[in-house]
């Protein structure tokens, strides 16, 4: 039996286009189902927090968004680096496709965080280490997208974006720890997230299911955007023309 996998087969935009087209519905449906289950657990099954009341339930959106925001940046930088190192067009397109979804995540995390902060801490915003580093992460995403948008030649945009993504990925831990030390030096917020008691099992379960839903959504969204990028860049190629005539 020949179990050899042709890894490079799907590195061609034309074959990946078809693969992604077939995969998107699966991921989208998985995201919807997991999202419904996760939200059901978060709103109806998970117990009311004895300290924070009902308002804590925003955690089921907030924490997965914060996780995804950091994870997607690493994934984006990884694909950008692969594109830069091996000169594969598809990897760079994937990096550009991930960026907007990635930028959405810190935005969501900050937005839900401030909605949570108002009833808990009595303020929309504190210069807490985590909030601040999440904000800077959002700036890094925006910088990546702005640089790519400003360069007309797509190949140059890919490479330039890859360099800034890699510089960013080295800097993210440095920025994170700097901000943390800065915060302790300033003795800023007297409230902290870490002082809350350990989580109930159902809460953790709900959060993990929501995180999975976010994963599925991110993959589906990135694939859909990647398909659009492929079509745009390969519009002069034969297979895209054939695709158009086939419809």
């Amino acid at each position, binding site marked *: 039996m020949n179990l050899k996998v042709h890894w490079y087969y799907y590195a061609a935009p034309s074959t990946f286009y078809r693969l992604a087209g077939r995969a998107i519905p699966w991921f989208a449906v998985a995201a919807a189902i997991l999202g419904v289950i996760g939200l059901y657990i978060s709103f109806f099954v998970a117990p009311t927090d004895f300290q924070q009341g009902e308002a804590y339930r925003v955690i089921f959106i907030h924490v997965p968004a914060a996780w995804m925001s950091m994870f997607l940046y690493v994934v984006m930088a990884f694909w950008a680096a692969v594109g830069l190192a091996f000169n594969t067009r598809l990897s760079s397109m994937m990096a550009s496709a991930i960026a907007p979804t990635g930028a959405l995540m810190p935005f969501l995390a900050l937005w839900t965080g401030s909605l949570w902060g108002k009833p808990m801490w009595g303020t929309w915003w504190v210069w807490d280490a985590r909030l601040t580093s999440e904000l*800077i992460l959002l*700036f*890094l995403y*925006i*910088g990546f997208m*702005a*640089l790519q948008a*400003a*360069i*007309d030649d797509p190949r*140059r945009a890919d*490479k*330039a974006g890859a*360099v*800034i993504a*890699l*510089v*960013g990925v*080295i*800097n993210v831990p*440095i*920025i994170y720890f*700097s*901000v943390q*030390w*800065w915060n302790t*030096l300033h003795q800023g917020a007297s409230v902290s997230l870490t002082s809350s008691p350990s989580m109930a099992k159902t809460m953790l379960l709900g959060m993990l299911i929501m995180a999975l839903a976010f994963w599925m959504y991110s993959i589906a969204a990135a694939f859909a955007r990647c398909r659009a990028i492929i079509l745009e860049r390969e519009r002069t190629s034969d297979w895209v023309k054939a695709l158009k005539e086939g419809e």
Partner: protein
Amino acid sequence: MNGVTTLQAFVAVVRRDLMLALRRRADVLNTLVFFIIVVSLFPLGVGPEMDMLRKMAPGIVWVAALLASMLALSRLFAADYEDGTLETLVLAPQPLGLLVGAKVFAHWLISGLPLVIIAPVLGIQFDLPAESLAILALSLLLGTPVLGLIGAVGAALTLGVRGGGVLISLLVLPLYVPVLIFGAGAVEASAAGLGWTAHIALLGAFLAMSLFFAPWAAAVGLRIALE
């Protein structure tokens, strides 16, 4: 290699950039004047109370230094890019990272060092104690080269790009955050009578790291821009 050692090439690039800068002195002065004006605007904005200004001084001077060195970045490669010198540098047998390092060093002598020298004078305006003035100069001495090195990456990537000036600030300012935190932090700590050596040590670590990585990353950026 024509008998030109890498050290000679380094010195030649530094000398050339310094000479060009001395022929156009106004450009050099503009950065410095910008720095002084921005720092002087803050008391007009927030009021003349000396207690508050003394507290804010490290942050104000450092943010102004950040903005001033960011504005100067557009001059780092732009002229060489337009007249083709950059292509000669890329084709030179010496490693491009080293030549970029030479350019950044010359750029720092022109636009960073004046800020370090003038900053204590501005600190006096904000009634900082003598020791803090020295720490302010020291932190800028270690911090401004880091700003130039990180900025070189941004300058290389935005070379010849639409709206490069605003774009470079989007790319570079978030990366400046750690330098700002520990640069201003060192001065604040000394003003508060706390230990400032840790901050200065971290700034030194940033300098060592960016000296190692940034010229190389900027060289990659230049190659991409010239493709």
